[in-house]
C-alpha cells in the first residue's frame, strides 16, 4: 500500500471546508501548542467560546478578515499508516481554476455539501471537473449532519443523488463513498460517531488511511521526458553523457529498446544512473539519469519511449482545455504549449465545443473560451511532439497553454476528447 496519499478538497462557500480541514489537522495531532494558542486567542477576540478550527487554515490576512479562502493551500498531516498531502481548494471564486489545480495531482477528492442544502449545481460541476482530471476516488462529506438532527433519511437522499451523478460521469460505485460528518463537532471525522448509529461505514480518516489508490502506471509503456543533459567534462568523467529526467510512465531496465522522439532514432538503455549508484530497474515517478548504448544527439525536451509502444508523434493536438485565465481564448490565437520538458509555439486552429461542466449539453463552435470554461480545441504546433491520450498516460497527455506575451498560464490541457 502506498504510504503517501495526495488528496484535494472542494466545496462551496460556507460548507465548512476550512473547519473540516482544521478538524483533520487537529484530530491527527498535527496542530502544535503554539498554533492552537494563537487560534484560541483569535477565537476569544471574536467572542467565541470554543476555538474556531477554520482559523488554523485560513492563511492570508485578507482571508481572515473576510472569512473566506482565496487560493489553493497545501496541508500536511500523518498517521502511523500514511502521510497526507492535502490541496485545500476554495469553492467560490475561480472554482474551476482552483479545483483543476488541486485535482491535477490528487489521488482522492473530498467534496463537501451542507446536509441542509444537499447536492447543488456547484457540487455537480466540481464532480465533473474531478472526473475530467481523472481523480480516481471520490468522497462526499455530508457536513453539518448535526444541524439536521443526525437524520438518516436526509443523508441517504443526498448520498444516492450524488452516487447517480458520479456514475453518470464514469465513476464506479466502489470509487465513491458518502460519509455523514460534522466538522464542527468532530462526528465521523477521525473516529466513528455514536450519534449516527445507522451509518456503518468508516470515518473520513479511516477511509483516507485504508483506501486503495491506483498504483503508478508501472504496467504502462515507458515515457521519459529528457529534462537536462548531464555532461561533466571533468577529468574523472571526460566522456560521460547522461539524460536526466523523471519517469512519467512505465518502468525502465538496462537493455530496454527505446526510441527518441520526435526524431525517431532507436537505441538501447545501457545504464540507469543515480547519485547513489546504478539501478537495476526504475519506475514511474523516479528521477534518474539514463545512459544509452549509442552516441546520438538528444537534448532537453526530447522524449525517450518504449520502442515497441511509442506515443504518437504529431504537430496537431486535439484536446480538452480548462481555461484558467480572465483573458479569453479566440480562434487563431497564438500561444505556447508546454508538454513534458518541451515548450513549443502553437496556434489555436479551431474551437470545436464548449461544455457545460455537468456534461449534459455543449455549445458547438463557440466564439471564445472564457475563464472557467471547458472546451474542445485543436492546436497546430510549430514542432512535433510525442503525445498520449490523457486517459492512457496522464503525465504525457497533460500540457499547459501559456501566454507568449507575459508568460501567464492560460489553460490546463488534456490530450484527447475527454467528454465525448
Amino acid at each position, binding site marked *: 500500500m502506498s504510504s503517501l496519499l495526495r488528496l484535494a478538497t472542494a466545496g462551496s462557500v460556507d460548507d465548512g471546508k476550512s473547519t473540516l480541514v482544521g478538524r483533520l*489537522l487537529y484530530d491527527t495531532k498535527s496542530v*502544535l501548542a503554539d*498554533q492552537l494558542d494563537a487560534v484560541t486567542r483569535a477565537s476569544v477576540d471574536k467572542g467565541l467560546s470554543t476555538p474556531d478550527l477554520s482559523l488554523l487554515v485560513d492563511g492570508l490576512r485578507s482571508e481572515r478578515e473576510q472569512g473566506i479562502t482565496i487560493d489553493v493551500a497545501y496541508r*500536511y498531516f500523518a498517521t502511523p499508516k500514511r502521510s497526507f498531502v492535502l490541496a485545500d481548494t476554495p469553492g467560490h471564486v475561480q472554482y474551476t481554476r482552483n479545483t483543476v489545480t488541486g485535482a*491535477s495531482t490528487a489521488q482522492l477528492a473530498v467534496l463537501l455539501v451542507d446536509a441542509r442544502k444537499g447536492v447543488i449545481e456547484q457540487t455537480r460541476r466540481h464532480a465533473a471537473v474531478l472526473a475530467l482530471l481523472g481523480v480516481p476516488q471520490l468522497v462526499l462529506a455530508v457536513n453539518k449532519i448535526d444541524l439536521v438532527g443526525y437524520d438518516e433519511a436526509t443523508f441517504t437522499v443526498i448520498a444516492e443523488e450524488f452516487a447517480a451523478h458520479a456514475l453518470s460521469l464514469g465513476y464506479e460505485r466502489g470509487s465513491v463513498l458518502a460519509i455523514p460528518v460534522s466538522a464542527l463537532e468532530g462526528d465521523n471525522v477521525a473516529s466513528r460517531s455514536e450519534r449516527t448509529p445507522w451509518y456503518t461505514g468508516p470515518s473520513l480518516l479511516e477511509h483516507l488511511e485504508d483506501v486503495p489508490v491506483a498504483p503508478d502506471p508501472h504496467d504502462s509503456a515507458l515515457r521519459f521526458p529528457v529534462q537536462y543533459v*548531464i555532461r561533466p567534462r571533468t577529468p574523472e568523467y571526460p566522456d560521460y553523457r547522461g539524460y*536526466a529526467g523523471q519517469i512519467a510512465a512505465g518502468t525502465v531496465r538496462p537493455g530496454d529498446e527505446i526510441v527518441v522522439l520526435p526524431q525517431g532514432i532507436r537505441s538501447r538503455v545501457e545504464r540507469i544512473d543515480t547519485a547513489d549508484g546504478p539501478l537495476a530497474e526504475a519506475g514511474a515517478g523516479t528521477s534518474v539519469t539514463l545512459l544509452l548504448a549509442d552516441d546520438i544527439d538528444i537534448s532537453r525536451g526530447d522524449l525517450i519511449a518504449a520502442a515497441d509502444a511509442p506515443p504518437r508523434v504529431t504537430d496537431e493536438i486535439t484536446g480538452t482545455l480548462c481555461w484558467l485565465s480572465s483573458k479569453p481564448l479566440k480562434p487563431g490565437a497564438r500561444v505556447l504549449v508546454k508538454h513534458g520538458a518541451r515548450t513549443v509555439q502553437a496556434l489555436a486552429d479551431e474551437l470545436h465545443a464548449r461544455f457545460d461542466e455537468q456534461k449534459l449539453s455543449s455549445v458547438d463552435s463557440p466564439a471564445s473560451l472564457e475563464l472557467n470554461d471547458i472546451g474542445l480545441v485543436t492546436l497546430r504546433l510549430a514542432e512535433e511532439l510525442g503525445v498520449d491520450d490523457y486517459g492512457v498516460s496522464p503525465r504525457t497527455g497533460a500540457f*499547459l497553454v501559456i501566454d507568449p506575451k507575459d*508568460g501567464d498560464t492560460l489553460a*490546463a490541457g488534456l490530450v484527447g476528447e475527454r467528454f465525448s
Partner: protein
Amino acid sequence: MTTLEPATDAAQDNLAALESEAIHIFREVAGEFDRPVILFSGGKDSTLLLHLAIKAFWPAPVPFPLLHVDTGHNFDEVIEFRDRVVERHGLRLVVAKVQDWIDDGRLEERADGMRNPLQTTPLLDTIAENKFDAVFGGGRRDEERARAKERIFSLRNAFGQWEPRRQRPELWNLYNGRHRPGEQVRVFPLSNWTEADVWNYIAREKVELPSIYYAHQREVYLRDGMLLAEGPWGGPRPGEEVRELTVRYRTVGDGSCTGAIESTATTVEDVIAEVSASRLTERGATRADDRMSEAAMEDRKREGYF
C-alpha cells in the same frame, strides 16, 4: 507541523518520492533559466537543498552559485560550516552583508537590534546586481500559514514582491518558469516536505549539519521566553541572569532573535525523538521575528523576503 516519528518503510517510500520531486524541480530550473542561484545560510534546510542539488546533477558539478544574505549576527560554527561546505564542493559563494548596507546608509539598524527583518533589501539588490532570474529557497509549506499558499515556482515582480493574486496555477508536475525581464522566480524544492521528512532524510543520507543543531554547553540568558546567547548582536541586560545550560538550536538565523532550546540530543536519532515529543512548531519555539505579529510572514513575503 506533523508529528515526528522515526522513519518506517512507508516513510522511506515517502522520502524517495520527495527526493525525486525535488531533483525534478532542480533540473527544470537548470533547463529553463539563465542565472539561477541557491540561497545558502548553512542552516539545515539550505544544507538539504544543496545536498539535493548535488544529487540532481551528479556526476557533474552543481551548475549554480550560492548566495548568503549575512546578517552579521552569526554563530561561528555555522560560518565555519558554510565555508567548509563551499570549499569541499568547489562552489562559488556570493555573500551580501547586511552590515555593508548599514555602513553606506542604505539601511538603518532597528531599535530592537534584530537584523532578520533587514535582509530583504540586500537580497533584492544582490539579485538585481547579479541578474539572478531564479532563486532557490528552502521554504516549506508546513512552516507557516502564509507559506501554505506558496507555489513551487513563485513569480516575483521587479521589486521581488509576492502578489498572491498573480500567482499561476500549478498543474501536474509542469512548472511554468516564464518571466519578463527584471522579474524573478523563487523556487522551493522542499515545498512538500515536513519537518519530520527533513530530519528523517538527514538521518537517511547522513547529511552533515552545523554542530549547533546538536546538544552542547552554552552560556545563555532568558528574554521574552527565549534562551539567547551573547554575541556580536549584544548580550544580557541588567537583571538577565546568564547560566550555562545544555542546549541546541532548532533553527538557525539572526542570533539576536534565534533562541536555543534545552536539549540533550546529540545525534540525529535523538533529535528525531525529541522533536516528535515537542508540542511547539520550530518557528514558534525559537524565532522572535516570526512572533512579531499575526501576519508577520505575509507582510515580509509581500516585501520581497522569502
